[in-house]
């Protein structure tokens, strides 16, 4: 699905001391499966995810996604990919505070309101939220419920790739395990990339990539 060649992300390009966030990464990723990207803080794992998901433009190299060179496409095309092909779970859930859990899921949807509402409800129910909780705003949901709502939002359009950046960072052990179980299940049909510095949550990963100082070590 992804073919990454000589991918580099360099900060302070115009100074003598260039900083490599990513350095000449070569990588091929399958169409489905749970991929873990692990590394310490500042190793470049988030930068790699942001480059793959079009949120950041790399300095050098190419990323081919399903035959599309995504480093060369227009901003509109990148928006389309993020809207229809990719799903995002961020470290903080970034739920819109004034919207209900259901609306927070629906806000990312591309379909018509009626079908989307049904689908969002089904997703939230599948992720363990009760119907009563659908109408609650994020401030009245627990951390785990918020993260599950964010997962539902990421999955509402059946994306081909789900990018999850530290999805369990703010969760207790039980909730972290539940989130990973959900992602593992989704990875049976789609590609799920999980970025973490906690190796213990990647026990079910199909592939674990380690990244150090912007370079893949495995």
């Amino acid at each position, binding site marked *: 699905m992804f073919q990454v060649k000589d991918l580099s992300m360099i900060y302070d390009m115009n100074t003598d001391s260039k900083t490599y966030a990513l350095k000449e990464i070569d990588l091929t990723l399958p169409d489905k499966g749970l991929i873990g990207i692990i590394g310490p803080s500042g190793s470049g794992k988030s930068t790699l995810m942001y480059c793959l998901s079009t949120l*950041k433009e790399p300095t050098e190299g190419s990323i081919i996604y399903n035959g599309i060179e995504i480093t060369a496409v227009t901003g509109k095309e990148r928006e389309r990919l993020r809207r*229809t092909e990719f799903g995002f779970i*961020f470290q903080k859930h970034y739920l819109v505070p004034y919207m209900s859990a259901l609306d927070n899921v629906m806000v990312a949807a591309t379909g018509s309101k009626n079908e989307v509402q049904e689908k969002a409800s089904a997703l939230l129910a599948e992720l363990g939220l009760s119907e009563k909780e659908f109408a609650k705003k994020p401030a009245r949901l627990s951390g785990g419920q918020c993260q599950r709502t964010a997962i539902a939002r990421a999955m509402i359009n059946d994306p081909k790739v789900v990018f999850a950046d530290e999805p369990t960072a703010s969760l207790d052990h039980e909730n972290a395990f539940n989130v990973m179980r959900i992602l593992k299940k989704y990875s049976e049909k789609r590609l799920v990339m999980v970025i973490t510095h906690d190796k213990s949550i990647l026990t079910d990963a199909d592939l674990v990539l380690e990244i150090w100082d912007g370079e893949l070590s495995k």
Partner: protein
Amino acid sequence: MKLSAWKYVKNNMRVLLVQISALSLSLMTMYVIYTLLQTTSESFRPIMLELPKKISYASITGSSYGLDVKGYETYEELEAAYNEKQEQLIERLKSRPGISDVFYAQILYSMYQSVVGQQTAETPLMEPERIPAFLDHMEARLTEGRMPAGDGEMLVDETIMKNMGYSIGGYFMKDWYGETFKIVGTIRSDCMISVGTPMGHTNSGSYLVVLGDESVMDLTSVLIEEGIKIKSSDNIIDGVHYRDAYRKDVEDAIGSAVNVIMIVVMVFLAILILVTYVSYMRNRVSEYCLYSSIGYGRGDIYGMMIREMFIIFGISAVTGMILSLAGGYAIERLVIEPKGLIGHVLYAGHMFKILSTFIFMIGILQIPALACISRIRTIDAVEK
């Protein structure tokens, strides 16, 4: 699905209530101030624009009649010559089309007080026998009391009676003329005329009183046509005189006051709204970054912002209009009507003008909106 503007409005009604209240109360304030000031224009219109269509006054000096003071040995000779010239002019004017009567009379001044400012109007004094014909010409009718029969008796317009707090049996312009002119009846007309009988000599002056129609409301031109060499020392009070005074002292002055007030309110409101919107947009940066990250374009986000603005301003405009009309009605009932003034509840033109300032403010708000849009990044920028 499109980004919904209504969701923010619906879920933040308490916060937005402050903004909506500020906008709608500002609209109401601008409208109510206009209504109060406009009352002056409306109230002075009968005296300044309608009355001179039926009656004009002229005080002409001897030199304008062509009399040379040096040519007369005594004052009596000069006075006799002046009176002769005046009588000749009266006869000539009477024979002109559009003039129904001309006579020489003392006048008094009647006062009419509005919310802002006051206006004086000439009030002729004449023999009791002349008054019925005069009222006919002025299309005025007695509504209460009786016709003047003796010296120093007045008929006063019922609007002026209410405005000045007069009552039958009371005295007309007591502060100016003392207890000299007693009010014996009220009259109703479209031009707020009052009339009375003389009581000796008053120092408000004597004038040629010309009763006519609109074709002779430019009395200066009529007099010039009659061979009078009008000079600045002559005092001609006609339609042109009042029309100019109305434009300058009422319409222009009030128009300027309304504009100044509107600009001041608008500047304060624009600053308030700008500050509110800047902080409101700052609070939502991570929300906008989220939308950008999950694939919404800047155009989608900007569209949502604009729709939100239109909803907020729309609700404010509707609320403001309702409050304005309620405020206008309250002023009509509590201030305008009891004071014998003239005003309306609805000034559609001005309401439209105020509403157009809302469009202007939406325009101003494009500055912070576009600045905010240009700062939107994807979520990675927020995570830093």
